[in-house]
């Protein structure tokens, strides 16, 4: 076509000079070009009008959580939440419920998927939106990257030879979030073998991991609070292969010298089928089992240390043997927040779990306060009422 315009000749004229049958003026060629340009412009406009605009997410004004009970908290699950507006919406709803504390999981393998290369973008979004909503973030670290574990091992498998690598990550994390994240939990439920790489649980081994992480964190920021434990409440008998009692495990941590390597204890306080007021007992998993962990701290000379509940609560699955009815769950949850407010050694009570990014399709869905579609469950409204008074 360019050749035709350049020559100003006729349609069908070719370099060879041979002509076709019908002559046509040069203007026709030009008008075809103009029409093509107009058509192209029209298509661009249609595309522009039809294409959905990107969702604009602004930080919004600095918010303050209004809560009668300053210890109310929840564990959010924003790790796998991709869209920024959903991150912001989740944290807004936490604030509107009246919870000043959140616990959030920051997987090592997501942030340092290549050794020494850190991608903080998603973690920054979560932390900065949380802070804008007036929330205090407790960060939980775990999830071993592929490069730091054997092929085909699970993400909770961390060989002792890799402890320095985890310590490096801890140092980088604390440095990056200095002044923004003041509480960091080391690992999750190491008294369960599936959280310990399907190996026999090892309180002394965990204590060595805690020591490495603690020293690295304090190098980066001496004021950061390192939380240990986060033990799963369990009645596993001595010698069980899949788990160790949380009480036994904590004492063995102290025996291994853990006392010098944490600032506060992270507690998991699940109620299973018991009401929040049920007294603690060695053979019961209930909310007040937290008091037994506290006793172990005191017995080991750690009375001055604080504790924070970083997981806990009740489940209302219709069939799970450890679940209660939704109405009971509401009663127990409100009572638990009330009990927590009176424990002077406790700073926060963050219950599991505020919302999942997508349905878990298991009993886990019945721990949440809000559905993946942001529909508040009745428990959300009841906690909001409680927190407002």
């Amino acid at each position, binding site marked *: 076509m360019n050749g035709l315009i350049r020559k100003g000749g006729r349609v069908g004229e070719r370099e060879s000079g041979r002509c076709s049958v019908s002559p046509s003026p040069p203007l026709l060629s030009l008008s075809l070009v103009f029409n093509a340009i107009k058509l192209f412009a029209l298509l661009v406009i249609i595309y522009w009008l039809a294409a959905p605009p990107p969702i604009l997410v602004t930080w919004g004004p600095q918010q303050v959580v209004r809560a009668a009970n300053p210890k109310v908290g929840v564990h959010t699950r924003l790790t796998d939440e991709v869209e920024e507006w959903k991150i912001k919406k989740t944290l807004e709803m936490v604030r509107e419920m009246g919870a000043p504390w959140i616990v959030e999981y920051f997987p090592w393998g997501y942030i340092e998927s290549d050794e020494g290369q850190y991608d903080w973008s998603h973690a920054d979004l979560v932390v900065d939106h949380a802070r804008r909503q007036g929330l205090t973030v407790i960060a939980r670290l775990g999830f071993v990257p592929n490069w730091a574990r054997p092929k085909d091992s*699970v993400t909770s498998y961390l060989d002792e030879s890799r402890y320095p690598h985890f310590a490096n990550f801890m140092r980088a994390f604390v440095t990056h979030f200095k002044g923004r994240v003041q509480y960091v939990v080391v690992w999750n439920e190491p008294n*369960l073998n*599936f959280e310990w790489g*399907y190996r026999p649980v090892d309180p002394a081994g965990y204590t060595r991991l805690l020591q490495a992480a603690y020293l690295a964190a304090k190098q980066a920021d001496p004021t950061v609070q390192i939380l240990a434990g986060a033990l799963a409440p369990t009645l596993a008998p001595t010698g069980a292969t*899949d788990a160790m009692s949380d009480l036994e495990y904590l004492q063995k941590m102290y025996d291994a010298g853990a006392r010098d390597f944490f600032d506060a204890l992270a507690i998991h306080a699940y109620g299973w089928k018991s009401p929040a007021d049920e007294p603690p007992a060695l053979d019961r998993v209930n909310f007040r089992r937290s008091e037994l962990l506290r006793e172990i701290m005191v017995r080991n000379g750690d009375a001055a240390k604080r504790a924070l509940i970083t997981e806990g609560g009740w489940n*209302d699955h*219709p*069939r*799970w*043997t*450890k679940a209660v*009815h*939704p*109405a*009971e*769950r*509401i009663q127990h949850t409100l009572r638990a927040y009330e009990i927590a407010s009176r424990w002077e050694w406790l700073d926060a009570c963050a219950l599991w779990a505020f919302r999942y990014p*997508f349905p*878990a*399709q*298991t*009993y*886990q869905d019945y721990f949440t306060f809000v*559905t993946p579609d942001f*529909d508040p*469950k*009745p*428990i959300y409204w009841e906690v909001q009422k409680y927190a407002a008074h």
Partner: protein
Amino acid sequence: MPRTSQRSTAAGRKSQVAGGRSQATNRRSWFARLRLGTWDLRPGTLPVVIVVAVALAYLAYTTFAPKPPPQPDATWTRILEEGVFRIGIDPSFPPFESDDGKGNLSGLDIALADEFVRDWSNANAGSVRVEYVYTGFDGLYDALKAGQFDAIISALPYDPKKTEDVRFSHSYFNGGPLIVVRESDATTKSYYDLEGRRVGVELGSTGDIFARKWQRRLKYDLSEFNTPTDALRALRLGQVDGVFTDIIAYNEIARVEGGVKTVGKPLINELTVIAVRKDTPTLLAQINGVIDAMNGDGRMERLWGQWLVGSGQ
């Protein structure tokens, strides 16, 4: 003017343009006069027809030709050789599975697993037994992948997110909430029929979440009760016209007190399935074969009757 005439005329014009070659073209035009149904088979179309025919023949061959039987997978071979079918289970979900504290398991899933090994033993003239591996629900998928057992049979809900990692069997139970009405109610067939009426649910249940969503459209009065039993009793007493609840809660009332029935299909599908590793297609086919057979010969319904009394499904 008939189509053939138009085409002939067009062909003639083309011949003129070509300049004196019309006779030769006409001699070759037996192609043009060939017809396939109502379509002319014209010059240049034959290669296309051949290609399409070959493609169709290939498709038919690959679809209908007898295939050599696939090689049994290693897991299935081992199950038959050792006579042991290993199942991962968390016995915390009655009436699907529970442990009496002495290691004795019972429930729908246990009975189902017994059916599997019975059918396999009969079909393979050998003896296959079940061996259970207790695993916390959260660790079931990892343990399956790690080869600690052959299948998960543990009131396992279908999860589309897991289909990259495991293979799921056909569903053998749908646990989604149902519509329950009084036995005398002959008009209610679906939740649409409850428009403007009174609906009861258990506070915070899946039925409650469903009811809240549809309330904006169907404008029914929604009453929330502390337990599903309370909601169903309110139904019997005429305080509500329909209840959204799960089959287990319904059965407890239907069996003991009566006066209620379920209508329609589950409001939400909550499919219960079995998971196997991706490299065990034969085992999956064997499991599906037994589930399908049980659905066909009434055994599945009998199991529901035994463990979920009068499920009505």
